[in-house]
């Protein structure tokens, strides 16, 4: 097909950038409140890193919802399973992980992450077929079924791995910080930031540059019409569901390493955060999810520093504030 030149494009609709500026403004506002510039840099990097991890976990959930109107209350289970599966590789090969060579560290870290993603992706397949598909289109039952799934997954983890906290030490090469003047930036946080950015860019590219991506975006907006054009949206949905589950698994691994420990309740704990992110961002919007994740992490980090007791409550306040401003989230995609 020859390239068609738009003879006279419409005046470009104004890009909605206010939400994009939000994290920036928040970060700048915090400079005087935090006081010391070096603490501020540390907190900001911590926020961004944490935000990226939450984004990775939440991205699948927002697409799954946007595309098929499916509310998966069991999403947290994938996070927990991901983290636990990684320990299956990381603990037996602890000597590799603690070796003083980045290459050897990665040789155990990468397979661990890939295994986690494989297992959670496969689990996603099972969950979609067994828990989501039978009650497709019925919100109430979806919520009940996936909540049930979360309980079962969590309890199975307890039964298999025991109720104790499992330590998950960071590989040697990722410990410590880069020191720039009087600012210390943790290596692992930097890595998390990098991975998050790469995933964000990759998702954006897929959504904008490939036909599958076009179908997902179109499906988020109007899935009936996608079907009326002759595409089997259920298959597409299954693919998105599995990818989202795998990403949640990856997020679980990263979170486990970040906390250097794993516990089955990690799913519960993060479910709430992930929900808040998805709501703030606008259901179905990847950009919104990205910004929402950073905002939630910023509030948690700056808030934790300034008013330690109110960390989780401050997230609720954030959610209330954002929804008062935009009742459908920062970027509302679905027309439903």
């Amino acid at each position, binding site marked *: 097909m020859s390239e068609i030149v738009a003879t006279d494009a419409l005046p470009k609709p104004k890009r909605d950038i206010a939400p994009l500026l939000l994290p920036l403004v928040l970060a700048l506002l915090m400079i005087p409140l935090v006081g010391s510039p070096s603490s501020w840099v540390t907190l900001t990097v911590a926020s961004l890193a944490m935000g990226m991890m939450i984004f990775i976990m939440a991205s699948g959930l927002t697409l799954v919802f946007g595309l098929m109107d499916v509310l998966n209350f069991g999403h947290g289970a994938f996070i927990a399973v991901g983290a636990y599966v990684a320990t299956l590789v990381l603990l037996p090969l602890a000597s590799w992980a603690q070796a003083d060579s980045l290459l050897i560290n990665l040789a155990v870290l990468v397979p661990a992450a890939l295994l986690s993603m494989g297992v959670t992706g496969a689990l996603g397949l099972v969950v979609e077929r067994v828990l989501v598909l039978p009650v497709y289109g019925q919100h109430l039952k979806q919520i009940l079924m996936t909540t049930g799934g979360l309980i079962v997954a969590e*309890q199975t983890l307890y039964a*298999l791995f025991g109720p104790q906290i499992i330590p998950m030490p960071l590989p040697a090469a990722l410990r410590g910080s880069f020191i720039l003047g009087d600012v210390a930036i943790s290596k692992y946080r930097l890595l998390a930031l990098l991975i998050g950015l790469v995933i964000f860019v990759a998702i954006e590219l897929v959504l904008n540059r490939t036909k599958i991506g076009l179908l997902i975006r179109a499906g988020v907006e109007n899935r009936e019409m996608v079907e009326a054009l002759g595409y089997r949206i259920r298959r597409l949905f299954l693919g998105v569901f599995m990818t989202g589950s795998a990403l949640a698994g990856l997020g679980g691994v990263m979170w486990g390493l970040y906390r250097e420990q794993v516990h089955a309740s990690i799913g519960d704990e993060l479910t709430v955060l992930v*929900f808040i992110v998805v709501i703030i961002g606008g259901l179905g919007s990847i950009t919104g999810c990205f910004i929402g994740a950073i905002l939630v992490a910023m509030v948690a980090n700056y808030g934790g520093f300034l008013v330690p007791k109110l960390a989780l409550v401050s997230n609720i306040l954030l959610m209330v504030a954002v929804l008062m401003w935009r009742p459908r989230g920062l970027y509302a995609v679905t027309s439903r």
Partner: protein
Amino acid sequence: MMILSGDPPRSRALSILLVVILLALLATPFVFPGAKALNVAAKICIFAALVASYDLLLGYTGSVSFAHTMFYGIGSYAIAIALYGLGPSWTSVAVAVVAGLPLALLLALAIGLFSLRVEAIFFAMITLAVASAFLVLASQLSWLTGGEDGRSFQLPELLRPGTVFIGKEWFGFPINGRILTYYLVLSACALMVLALLRVVNSPFGRVLQAIRENRFRAEALGYRTVFHLTYANCIAAMVAACAGMLNALWLRYAGPDTSLAFSIMLDILLMVVIGGMGTIYGAVIGAAIFILAQNYLQALMSIASTAASEAGLPLLPGLLHPDRWLLWLGLLFIASVYFFPTGVVGRLRGKPAAKH
């Protein structure tokens, strides 16, 4: 039929079951003496009311709230804090009621109005977030709530076990304040369940069902759905708070694990689903079945687990361990949503499965 608000059980088996449950609850102190049986019976009463109030939301308006335990907790803590702080008197109980109920009402109103401003689909997520924040708050404000340890307190004189009304000589055990408390709990809960039955059978309840069936249509018919849903939320929250108060009075204690934990929310969901959504009677049945199972099946699991480990089976001892009770609960939960969406009551009434 006045007392049932013109909504009888409509099934002989169901009526018999309900009568049996009621008689058993009434007779428990005399027929099954012992602390455990009385505790189980009181818990059934309290949960019957709590679950019935949740059914008003889930079954009659079709909205899933994860914040119901929050209201339950508010009631529990109101009693605990008042009796702990002001001493064991009836005035303290009155203070708890006067402070706790309006607080629950206000919060329900706030959540209701806020959720109505945003998309309906957010409701479940928002309530989950708010409830978890409340849980954190309750365990962190330890100067007020006692933190993770909760608050134990003394009951007013009349309700204490030491207050004996009729001595041992009549029934072989004394009729004391504890038994009086039990009947107080039982009658209050029965009243609440009957009141909810009245609510759902009033014109208001029918509007709620119309909204559940098709919110759009109900709006087109001129009902102010916003008003009705918020109102239902408030009623449910008040009943939950009352149930929480009774719970605290019965346990002489309030803490995160007995009144706010997420697992209680799951229990409530399970009871509603097992009993049958949108029936109110289902709450009574669900609570009775569930709590009996919870208290007596765990013992069985423990026996099975030991047997499995003695037989040298892999994995099974872990899966059957009483602590893994929730695992089986979860499976049961999924199975009942899947296979018995209308619950016990729906089955007994033999009506075709509801679509939503």
